[in-house]
């Protein structure tokens, strides 16, 4: 899921950092739909255009913040469900 979008993001982030730093990019397949001031604006536009199917929204920053969820890291919560999570 989102494989194309994630590769496209990595291939273009350095260019976007020059002109769209701190904005949120909305990507579907290998197309930039737009840059937005907030993640809420980007997601709303994504839903407007693509309904509830998947699309990528990420901040244009040098390094993505990695979520820190110790309950998953130490295995208190199951981060590897036995059922595949995809649609």
């Amino acid at each position: 899921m989102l494989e194309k979008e994630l590769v496209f993001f990595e291939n273009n982030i350095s260019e976007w950092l020059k002109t769209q730093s701190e904005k949120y990019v909305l990507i579907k397949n290998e197309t930039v739909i737009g840059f937005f001031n907030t993640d809420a604006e980007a997601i709303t536009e994504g839903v407007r255009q693509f309904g509830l199917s998947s699309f990528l929204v990420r901040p244009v920053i040098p390094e993505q913040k990695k979520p820190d969820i110790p309950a998953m890291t130490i295995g208190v919560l199951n981060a590897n469900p036995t059922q595949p999570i995809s649609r």
Partner: protein
Amino acid sequence: MPILHSQFRGDSLNSQGEPLQVAPKLAMQFRGPVLQVLVGVPDEIAEQLIQQGLSVPDPIPGYGLIDTGASNSCIDDTTAQILSLPVIDRVPIATPSHDSTLKNVYPMQIVFTGTQIKANVYRAIGASLNNQQIIALIGRDILSNVTLFYNGPSGELTLSI
């Protein structure tokens, strides 16, 4: 100012098999700081769906566990799928068996049942939470906007915004 105040209670059985009320202090210690919540789609997405003539999925009731150790809130993957929430990113999460596993990211809304306290969370991490009898993990992205008072001795939890 909306305030949610909750005192925990629990029932157990004594050695003779008779019902026994558990002290609030112990009930909160063993159950953890859970609150009744409704998990649904954020307001902006709901408005967009209505404008498109689509139905907005009904919020799903369940328990949310407050986790001050988590930087981000989490949503149960099955709940997210029932709500048809769009996947908007994939992020690496370290697990006991892997350095990092890619997890889905969803936008969600949490409403604390019986209050006007709600939070739109645009980057909730998908996780398998059902086996913990919770549908959401309430992390510091939500807690950064509220005051939380954990009263261990009296088994009470107060949340205000």
